[in-house]
């Protein structure tokens, strides 16, 4: 009992089991991959339509077509990672609270949040990760080889990019586990899941679009400093897509702080929620 559980080994077992399970229903796996790919393609079509009418999103923001496609592929990376690792588990968590299955998770000699968050991995969601990689490579190639004002990639930023993608994933994870934990208090919360989608919707576009008027600025403030979903994609995407200005350093540093705070806050909410858990079994 006194031995510390080896988290890495447990995680690898989870990953392997999920892969075995996914490969058992191979046709389903294939359909899911194609479906998420089709969804992404349709989205891409929408943005191509937009760029048929304009050269950039917002005046003088620098988000031209290929800059925005870097942004889009960053969104794809982050969303596919969240969907692969955390989404199925958060859904399962709400179900466990409702049915009383959480009892079994609490009894296991391992951190409950770890167990709850990573039990199941949905491998099919990683299709969009690959699609994002293709889109990113293509957009960066377009940006760095264009005739006027070609983009120069700094090695340090290229190294920092994966770190910030990871930060984005962790911020979204914190938000998701917080919302899932509230279902201990509320019983069943379908609306809160919709809420998650509606909130992350704000992370899908460059934050410059919220700079017009008092409503835009207050949204920008709220979703940067209170619920930091705006930094999730914006910080890493900006890092690759355009040269960083001095003003961006502050936001880049803040993204790290926001990640740490979001993780701590979600951990706190999770533990508070567990204290109120009354088993639902018969």
């Amino acid at each position, binding site marked *: 009992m006194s031995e510390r559980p080896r988290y890495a080994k447990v995680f690898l077992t989870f990953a392997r089991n999920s892969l075995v399970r996914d490969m058992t229903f191979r046709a389903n796996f294939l*359909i899911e991959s194609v*479906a998420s790919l*089709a*969804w992404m393609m*349709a989205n891409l*079509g*929408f943005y191509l*339509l*937009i760029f*048929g*009418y*304009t*050269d*950039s*999103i*917002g*005046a*003088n*923001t620098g988000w031209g077509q290929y800059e925005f496609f870097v942004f889009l592929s960053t969104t794809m990376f982050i969303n596919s990672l969240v969907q692969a690792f955390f989404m199925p588990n958060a859904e399962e968590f709400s179900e466990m609270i409702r049915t009383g299955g959480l009892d079994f998770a609490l009894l296991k000699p391992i951190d409950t949040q770890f167990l709850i968050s990573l039990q199941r991995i949905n491998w099919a969601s990683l299709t969009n990760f690959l699609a994002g990689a293709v889109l990113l490579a293509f957009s960066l190639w377009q940006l760095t080889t264009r005739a006027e004002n070609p983009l120069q990639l700094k090695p340090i930023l290229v190294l920092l990019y994966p770190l910030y993608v990871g930060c984005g994933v962790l911020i979204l994870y914190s938000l998701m586990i917080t919302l899932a934990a509230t279902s201990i208090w509320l019983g069943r919360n*379908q*609306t809160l899941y*919709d*809420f998650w989608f*509606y*909130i992350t*919707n*704000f992370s*899908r*576009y*460059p934050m*410059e*679009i*919220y700079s*017009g008027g008092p409503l*835009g600025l207050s*949204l920008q403030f709220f979703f940067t400093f209170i619920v930091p979903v705006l930094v999730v994609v914006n910080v890493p995407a900006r890092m690759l897509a355009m040269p960083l200005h001095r003003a961006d350093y502050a936001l880049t540093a803040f993204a790290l702080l926001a990640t740490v705070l979001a993780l701590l806050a979600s951990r706190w909410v999770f533990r508070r929620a567990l204290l109120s858990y009354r088993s639902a079994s018969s």
Partner: protein
Amino acid sequence: MQARVITWWTILRICLEERLVYRGDFALGTLMRFLPIVTQIFLWYAIFQAVSAAAGHERSLYDVQLAGYHYGEFVAYYLMTMISRAFSSMPGLASGIARQIREGEVKKFLVQPVDMLGFLLLGRVAHKLAYYSVAIGPFALIFFLCRGYFYGLPLEAATHSATTFAAFVASLLMGFLLGYFLEASIGLIGFWWLEVSSLLFVYMLLSFFLSGHMFPLDMLPEPWLTLIDLLPLKYLAYFPAAVFLGKVSGWELALGLGVELAWVLFFVFFSRLMYRQGVNRYSGFGG
């Protein structure tokens, strides 16, 4: 006849009461459904800014147009598609029908003197009525806050013309029927396939982009425009909004309403036919 009316009235009342149990959740959900629209509006605001900046500094946002829409019309369009979708969207209908077929619940319609499609239709009417009675608050609030975007509409728009307004209401009501019978037809495929979720995904994907609630459909370039005219999907979101904004008028409007009616009738007959054929080949076992 009278007995039948009483039966249907009772069904409607029961469904209505069932729906109003969760009105708090309902109201909250409705307000949240406007959040994605907020991001869309900001996105288009930024796009209009870029376009007007490219056209020269002396022009304001309302001088530039994208595909015949100025900025105010764009926002008004999004708000109006919220209304069309409030009529035409049928969450869980097709998957629910397929599940009832798969799990054998459909048997109850075979032994009771109640028609399945009629029963479910009344359930949806009740759902919508309950929904509107709660959602009218959030909707009124949003439209009041956004009233400025409706000021510059042309004379053909429903804000100026009673005829257009009547056409708008008709297109909404037909949109409801079209949405219902279209999704019911998809669900009834469950008699043959049992599981329709992959088909439903294709339908959702198509309707997400081609019904017009992501962007005004007349923005699309050519092969797509023809495709859209051939599909019934545009009547679920785009058409009522376009009618309200005065984008379709005169003979075009009459023709549009006629085609919409034809689609409604087609899916009414089609779903009836599928139900008859499906019941013929259905076999249920056990209790």
